[in-house]
């Protein structure tokens, strides 16, 4: 089932000259985990904003083409209607904090308050995300007294608690410790297995390769490619887009060892081990 349809999307921020999004078209199916990669300024965050309607409803400017999320055309809808379907975790967790809540607990409750949930359901959801993202110990703390990583965990938790149909995450693990970052990918991967549609921007290329069903490569506002991780990371022109393949791919490329399909190179640790293991003396 098509969950997100983007057709010839073009967008330019007010008082700028260059298109931030330049004629982008793609579709995403329900339950897919989509990774978005590209160099700084490629348009990744802008595309995220367009999927949740902040472009064009908050950021005005020149807009063309269509974004349809779960049958709703974003441009004809409103941010509040869309926010019931799609949630976004911003690139800088600081931007996400309401600033009006005194505790982490209230901060997470805030997003749930207007959803018409029963009190019990609400409390259950809060406890479950506090636990899932390992911030139960700081639930009574002021959000601004958290460490950077704790704040980022809170930002993710407050959106996941809303259980949107579609979740858009813009570099959600940039300040997380390595295991925390793995756990977030795993938790989000699990949600996608249960049917949530996931769009995640990340520079952590090894994790994107491992968890994404498909990867969208953006460059200067254009969609260069949208394919499986192995296909994307086996491209020999990746560096032209300011992106490098996972270290596992690079090692296999240096040793000229392809996957059994004889076309692509391994993109993940387990694929690389499988391809290389038999070829080394004990």
């Amino acid at each position: 089932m098509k969950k997100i349809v983007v057709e010839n999307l073009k967008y330019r921020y007010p008082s700028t000259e260059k298109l931030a999004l330049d004629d982008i078209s793609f579709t995403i199916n329900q339950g897919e985990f989509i990774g978005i990669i590209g160099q700084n300024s490629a348009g990744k965050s802008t595309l995220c904003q367009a999927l949740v309607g902040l472009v064009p409803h908050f950021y005005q400017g020149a807009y063309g083409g269509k974004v349809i999320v779960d049958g709703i055309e974003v441009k004809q809808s409103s941010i509040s209607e869309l926010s019931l379907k799609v949630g976004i975790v911003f690139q800088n967790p600081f931007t996400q904090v309401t600033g009006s809540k005194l505790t982490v607990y209230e901060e997470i409750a805030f997003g749930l308050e207007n959803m018409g949930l029963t009190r019990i359901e609400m409390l259950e959801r809060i406890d479950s995300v506090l636990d899932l993202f390992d911030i139960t110990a700081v639930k009574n703390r002021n959000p601004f007294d958290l460490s950077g990583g704790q704040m980022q965990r809170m930002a993710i938790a407050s959106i996941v608690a809303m259980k949107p149909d579609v979740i858009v995450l813009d570099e959600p693990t940039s300040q997380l410790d390595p295991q925390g970052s793995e756990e977030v990918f795993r938790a989000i991967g699990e949600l996608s297995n249960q049917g949530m549609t996931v769009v995640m921007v990340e520079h952590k290329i090894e994790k994107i390769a491992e968890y994404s069903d498909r990867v969208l490569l953006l460059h200067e506002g254009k969609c260069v490619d949208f394919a499986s991780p192995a296909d994307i990371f086996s491209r020999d022109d990746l560096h032209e887009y300011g992106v490098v393949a996972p270290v596992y791919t690079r090692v296999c490329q240096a040793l000229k060892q392809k996957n059994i399909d004889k076309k692509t190179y391994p993109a993940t640790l387990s694929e690389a081990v499988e391809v290389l293991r038999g070829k080394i003396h004990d």
Partner: protein
Amino acid sequence: MIKVKDVSFSYQAGTEIIKDITLHFDQRSTAIIGQNGAGKTTFVKLLKGLLKPSSGDIIIGDSSVNETTPATLAKQIGLVFQNPNDQIFKRSVLEEVLFGPLNIGQNPELAKENALNALKMVGLENRLEVNPQDLSLSDKKLLCIASIIAMDTNIIILDEPTIAQDHLGKQKIKEIIQSLKEKQKLVMTIIHDMDFVAENFERTIVFQQGKAILDGSTREVFAESDILAAARVEPPSITQLGYWLGYKQVFLTEKELIETIKTDSKIAL
């Protein structure tokens, strides 16, 4: 260059965030890694004199931080904040980078020269008049790094410099760290990107719940997989690949592993 002696610290009475840490820092480039909330940022704020230890002492050069004025300390030690919004406060990129050098008493010509050089290193030299608030997160972070480099202090601390950086941005930061090392400066960096740690730092210190639980050469530290796991850290990707291929040694770079496989392998290359 820095001696930390039995330092403890709490934000609120009863909860110790830094627990009796003793560490000496020499010129080796040093990574500080560890779990979210372990106390890494708090620790470097203590070094910079932004927080005062509840007990213990920190000696920078010859004098105790407790007896040094913030002005004197500012000439010795620069800190790039984890969150750029906590650091940036001027209305243009150039003013932002000029502030530090002027504030510690560099003459205006030298300050300008240092500011422009630092901006060139991070690639913001053509955006002098831009309002920092209009920069992207990655450029804000680079701006903060430039502001500290321009002060030319002997000790430079970077709190998660690679946040939001793409490959090129990380490459720039790598070169900056190299050039600071060549100038005999102590570069201390808090960072969660283990691949970056493996390639760039001589020494690595692991923090866990307010303590430094592991300290050694980066290769030694990444050999301690059990302690790392307890501190919620994973070894670098390349180290993991080497491990799963059955090697006992700890690989820190792609090149090391590729060379080893080439000599060992049955692959005709």
